[in-house]
């Protein structure tokens, strides 16, 4: 059956391979310039007074548009694969009626589906791995400049998660195709559901995939280094006994702060007053070195969801009427 899949997909595989090579060339060339820029700027700013703070925009040759494009490619690839590789896999068989040909040869539906899904997901993993490696390499100077890889767009297109997203999207596409039996509705549902999954995960789940660290920070002055590189999840004012201070219209409630400070207007002076009474910010954050652990956790999550989609597909394909 592998032979048959190759006969049917030959043209597409070659097209995608060429596109990947072109993308590699593009990223390669622009990436070298980005790297060059970075090294030049680092040499330049190391000697300066404020050190090398936030360099990112200055680093980019061609302006920030280029990094937007790269991030967009990384972001969209899983969706595109889910829609164009996943959704039509089973749906097209139903639309053209060829399932009545394929499933009356001498292979069971399960085996037919297994081989198709295996090759599709295998190709997905291969493609996205290469692409992600290229993007991660391209982005590394910017990561060094920004020190922060946990920001949403950056996190989503590097490391491992793109592979998890892509596998999940393709599995979702195949499942929608098997359920709805029409390519276009399957494509639409894939886009929609994948969008929801990505949004819910990055907004609500990602902060909690690993237990956050907490740190007490002085109310005045800048944040300590771990916070600069990390991802701040929440911050609350606590008193000397580490109890949270409720806020009233965005400022600490008078009942919770010492009398002495109650009269002071919110601002630097209030901060200094509270500071002298042992008040701090209690900050919950994910430190930068959680990057890989968070990547693995989120990838695993999406792979698990993908497995659920694949199992559902097998159920629908083998149990429902052809």
């Amino acid at each position, binding site marked *: 059956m592998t032979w048959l899949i190759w006969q049917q997909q030959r043209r597409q595989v070659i097209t995608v391979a060429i596109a990947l090579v072109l993308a590699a060339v593009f990223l390669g060339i622009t990436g070298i310039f980005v790297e060059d820029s970075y090294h030049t700027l680092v040499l330049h700013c190391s000697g300066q007074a404020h050190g090398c703070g936030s360099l990112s925009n200055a680093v980019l040759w061609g302006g920030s548009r280029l990094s937007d494009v790269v991030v967009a490619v990384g972001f969209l690839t899983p969706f595109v694969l889910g829609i164009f590789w996943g959704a039509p896999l089973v749906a097209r068989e139903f639309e053209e009626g060829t399932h*009545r040909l394929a499933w009356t040869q001498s292979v069971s539906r399960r085996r037919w589906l297994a081989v198709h899904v295996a090759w599709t997901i295998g190709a997905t993993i291969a493609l996205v791995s290469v692409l992600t490696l290229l993007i991660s390499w391209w982005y590394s100077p910017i990561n060094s400049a920004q020190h922060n890889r946990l920001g949403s767009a950056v996190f989503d297109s590097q490391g491992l998660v793109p592979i998890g997203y892509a596998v999940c999207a393709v599995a979702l596409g195949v499942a929608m195709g098997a359920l709805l039996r029409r390519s276009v509705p399957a494509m639409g549902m894939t886009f929609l559901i994948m969008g929801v999954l990505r949004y819910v995960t990055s907004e609500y789940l990602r902060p909690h995939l690993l237990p956050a660290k907490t740190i007490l920070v002085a109310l005045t002055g800048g944040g300590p280094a771990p916070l600069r590189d990390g991802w701040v999840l929440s911050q609350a004012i606590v008193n000397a006994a580490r109890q949270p201070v409720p806020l009233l219209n965005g400022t600490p409630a008078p009942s919770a702060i010492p009398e002495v400070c109650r009269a002071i207007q919110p601002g630097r002076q209030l901060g200094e007053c509270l500071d002298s009474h042992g008040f701090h910010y209690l900050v919950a954050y994910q430190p930068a070195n959680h990057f890989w652990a968070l990547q693995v956790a989120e990838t695993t999550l999406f792979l698990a969801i993908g497995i659920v989609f694949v199992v559902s597909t097998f159920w629908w394909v083998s149990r429902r009427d052809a």
Partner: protein
Amino acid sequence: MSDSALVTRGLAKRYRDQWALKSCSVDVPVGCIAALVGPNGAGKTTLLQLAAGLIRPTSGEVNVLGSAPYQDPSWLAQVGFLAQEVPLYRRLTGDQLLGMGAHLNPSWKEAVARDRLESLGIALDKNVSQLSGGERAQIGLAITLGKQPRILLLDEPVASLDPLARRDFLSSLTEAQFETELTVVLSSHLVADIERVCDYLVLLSHSQVQLAGRIDELLAAHRWVVGPRQTTEGGLAQHEIINESHTERQSTLMVRLNGPIHDPRWEVADVGLEELVLAYMGRKRVDEMASNQRRLSIVEDRP
């Protein structure tokens, strides 16, 4: 008693609130070429798809070559199915489709399929989408035959073939039946073909089996009976009346015999296959009819 190639017992299939097939019971012996006859929408395609394992029964059971249609590769290898619309992968060529047959069927015999297509002059290097309906049908049939199945389930296989191609395909079937004890169930509207080629008949109408059995036995069991106009059964009470019409002076009935006809008033003649098929297809639904103790009814006169 030979084995059964296709047995159904009370087989029924419902789609939402419509019954496509109701309480179907047939027994096609191995080595028969069975005709599946009936008006469109009578359930022929449903029956064939149930036998092929593409759809599952709502109730009742179906057994093909001794086991229930399931996705067991060794069972699938023995059953050949060709859908009415002859679905082929449009962007593949004939060669590639034969390759598919070879890769997906362990019992594939390339020569059977390829020689057939080459002798018909069908271009195997063109995309299937560029071929005519008849040529696509031939490719579909060749793929089905190449797999060397023990039973063939064909949904109107010759509908899009010219008379010569039709004759040629049916010859392949009759030769294969003789050489390999192949069983064929094919749906068809062409009674002339059925008379020559088929030895078993399943007649579906209103989603039910109206008639099923070996053709020679069915023809032996039915008679045209003609005689003077009657108002009583006239000695035919014990037989089942399939069809009747009356003029002022004459009654013509088709009966299913339940013993000999002794009454000398009746003139008895053989029934042809086409007449038999038409009579049963035109019959009211079986469940609307009374038992075979029927009285003759008065129908309007014929000119």
